[in-house]
């Protein structure tokens, strides 16, 4: 108890908390979001109200982010499992009674707003894992036996999302969860085994093609082939990615100019408002723009990771670090996808793609990150806070 007594009690006043907010990070977030507003204006040809809608969402999200950031991080630790349980309940509810949207069940309609529990789950899972590893302490975190509860916590929401089916979100959930495990100190052996297992599975899938024990159906192999070479099926399954690569490549170094991307403006590019917004950006601003935006994102994540290093408690560190990694996975997969490096799995570009729930969930995540940063010196009593 004397140890806790030695530590400065953090009872920060509101102005102090404001001052401790990571303002450069907030500025960077706003900068990326602003790029999004311009892109919404472009794909809406200056007529659709998408830019204004996106701005409204961002402003609401900013309010939410700051509100969350100003709440003591220990409160968020307290409700971590509750949020996780609520997320699981939401996913079950979607599977049971969700409405059909975009060909898959993802939405839940709670009267005034349609809401995606899977977005909430991405934050809640990391929150719950951060608490779990905080509670068991750094030593046990490295032991194999203590992996099992964490793996179950990751597996449950992944399975529920895959039922919808939403492969992209499942991958993001899994990557977010593993990031948390890795940063919290899970054994290297686990990750090596994981990598070997995954490699073996991929090998098995390809090796089994055409044999008696073929693991996937023929059409699934066909999809893989089209992913590997989209020109095989330019009108069908490869259409989206083909048009995206044409748009991307035709932008050249300098781009075709703002609101002058022919592939985008003439509707050859599909889903340009959501999943393929980065393609539009690259078409209109060229490689100079695309690399700059990539640099902005990288800087944002590095800044998050750097801030995580300054947090003095395990809960906050793991929370901030894994949310940053989840954000990185988000844009990394989206960019790889539109450039034909990853299959088209329906992952939007964070902060830029059109979409309400995604924006709110992201801003909540940044709020949690900032809360951990504001309360970076907050003392936790050893295992029970």
């Amino acid at each position, binding site marked *: 108890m004397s140890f806790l007594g030695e530590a400065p009690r953090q009872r920060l006043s509101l102005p102090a908390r404001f001052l401790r907010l990571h303002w450069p990070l907030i500025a960077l977030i706003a900068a990326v979001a602003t790029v999004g507003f311009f892109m919404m204006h472009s794909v809406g040809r200056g007529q659709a109200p998408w830019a204004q809608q996106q701005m409204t969402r961002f402003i609401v999200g900013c309010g939410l982010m700051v509100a969350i950031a100003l709440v003591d991080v220990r409160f968020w630790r307290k409700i971590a499992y509750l949020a996780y349980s609520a997320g699981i309940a939401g996913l079950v509810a979607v599977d049971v009674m969700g409405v059909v949207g975009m060909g898959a069940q993802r939405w839940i309609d709670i009267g005034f707003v349609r809401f995606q529990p899977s977005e909430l789950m991405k934050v809640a899972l990391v929150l719950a894992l951060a608490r779990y590893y905080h509670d068991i302490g750094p030593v046990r975190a490295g032991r194999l036996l203590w992996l099992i509860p964490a793996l179950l916590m990751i597996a449950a929401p992944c399975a529920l999302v895959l039922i919808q089916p939403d492969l992209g979100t499942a991958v993001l959930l899994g990557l977010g969860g593993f990031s948390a495990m890795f940063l919290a100190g899970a054994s290297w052996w686990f990750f090596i085994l994981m990598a070997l297992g995954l490699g073996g599975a991929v090998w098995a899938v390809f090796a089994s093609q055409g044999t008696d024990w073929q693991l996937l159906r023929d059409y699934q192999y066909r999809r893989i082939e089209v992913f590997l070479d989209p020109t095989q099926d330019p009108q069908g399954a490869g259409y989206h990615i083909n048009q995206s690569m044409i748009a991307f*490549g035709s932008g050249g170094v300098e781009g075709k100019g703002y609101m002058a991307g*022919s592939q985008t403006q003439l509707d050859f590019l599909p889903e340009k408002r959501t999943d393929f917004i980065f393609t539009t950006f690259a078409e209109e601003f060229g490689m100079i723009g695309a690399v700059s935006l990539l640099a902005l994102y990288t800087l944002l994540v590095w800044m998050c990771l750097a801030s995580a290093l300054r947090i003095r408690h395990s809960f906050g560190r793991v929370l901030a670090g894994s949310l940053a990694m989840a954000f990185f996975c988000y844009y990394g997969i989206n960019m790889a996808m539109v450039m034909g490096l990853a299959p088209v799995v329906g992952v939007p570009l964070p902060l830029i793609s059109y979409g309400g729930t995604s924006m709110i969930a992201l801003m909540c995540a940044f709020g949690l990150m900032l809360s951990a940063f504001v309360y970076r010196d907050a003392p936790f009593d050893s295992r029970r806070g």
Partner: protein
Amino acid sequence: MRDEELRGQEMGRKRFTRRVLLLGGVQGLVGAALAARMYHLQVVESPRHRAAADRNRFDDSMIAPPRGQIVDRFGRPLAVNKQNYRLFVSRDGSPDVEETLAQLARLIDLPEHRRQKALRELRTGSRFAPVMVAENLTWDEFALVNANAPALQGVTPDVGWMRDYPQKDSCAHVVGYVATPSQQDQEADPENSRLLLLPSMKIGKNGVERTEDPILRGKAGARRAEVNVRGQVIREISRDDGERGAELTLTLDADLQKYAMERMGDYSGSVVVMDVRNGDLIVLASMPGYDPNPFVGGISHAAWRALNEDPLRPLNNKAVAGSYAPGSTFKMIVALAGLDSGMISPQHTVFCNGRMPLGDHIFHCWKRGGHGAVDMNRAIKESCDVYFYDIARRIGVDRIAEVGRKFGVGVAPEVALPYVRPGVMPDRAWHLAKYGYGWPQGQTLNASIGQGYVEMTPLQLALMTASFANGGYGVTPRLVKAINGEDVKPEPLVDLGFRRPHVEAMQRAMDAVCNEQRGTGYNARIKLAGYEMAGKTGTAQVRRITAAERARRVRANEELPRHLRDHALFVAYAPRHDPRYACSIIVEHGGGGSAVAAPMVRDILTRLMTRPPPSEAAGSSEEAAQGRAG
């Protein structure tokens, strides 16, 4: 315990730091990989993607060029492009197509079946595909729709072009018509296959439209438009309207041609009038005519069959494709061949008793009692057959054929028309090649009066007459007088190589036919001083007269059913002392040349020579022609 916990905390913190740095590095590597992919797509492969984007974005189409118009020598329209006012409606532009069509129906005459058809096409077709709702609107209707355009959403007024032949049936054989290219046309012209596939493209199928098609067609234009993924045109990038086809001025006089056809009444046949000094074809008529306009839009099968199966063969251009026995109009060639051979002098006299035996066959003169003693001038003037039997026997068929060919018999004239036939100028070699045995002597006698194997087209008759009129010079017929207002030079006259006195003897004889008592054309002479014509009648048998029939009495034409009556022919030039125009006529089953054909030529030539002075456009080139002839 506390120390252990502290050490654990410290270990966890260091481990976290290590792993964060590791992940940061991984992130940097992934970022570098993404940047490398950007470089690959946007720099290395950029040209390929840019080309693909342009293929998406641009829609290139060809524009059919406006076809050149055709006018007669005085600028009267023969073939023009009529504006075709059309209305299109597209589902994309109209909030309620049914309402739009109902509004249209209040403004213009829109038959119910047309409306239903348009509605059906609008419902089934693409959102952006315009559907033609009405065409061939009057200007008033079209203006009314344009005035109401703001209220008619989705309605696009459009002006297309449609070939129109205002002279209708009188010039159809010369001008011809255009129609949509057929499969064969496309295969025959692979260079222009894309142009020929255009829905509005028409090509010349007959007449001058066909022979001058390459210059009438013009040069195709091109349009590049930007389209979106649904094929909707966003804007026009570039447009090249191409070059319009050349304007043709023909040598024809459309009014005189119409008059000539009217003058022939309900006879079938052909009239050709030409300028003896430069070959200008002033009239080139074939009876009966046909209206070429239905061919442009695609003639119905029934209408085409009716034309094709008509026994008077309206689709046939008899002036160049009708091959007839010239009858007595051929006699000047035989007489000139006699003079040219040196074996016959103009004073050569033959006693005609109405018949000439050859072997076991008797050849008759048209005059039953015979003409008595006739010299060459009288033989032509009164068309004595026996006289020509006599000189033909003396000089032989090959000498006749040689002279005949100089006058163009058996040679297809060079004229800008399709389906020009050469006629037939038989000789011994021809007969041997065709029938495999030697020339029968009797055919020499038949040929001497333009019967038997000899065949000529009305155009060849006119060319022959022109050569006699101009003193023995070969004439090349000219149909295209000017291209884009620039004169087409007439081919120079060619000396046929006959001695002047011989040709003048023929001229005197032809003069006598028309202007001396007992001449076969005397009753049809032009009495106007200074405009008199010189000519030659002809009557071509279309049936054999059997000996038994002859014994009874040769029936007069009036007693025979029409299709057995003789063809009536007449060739003439005028004025007789300063020849300017040559004319030939064939009246199918008209009976006698002097009674039926000669009066028609008299009226046509009189009208031509006494018409009001030609307008400016024609004057200059006629003077030029005069200069060359002089």
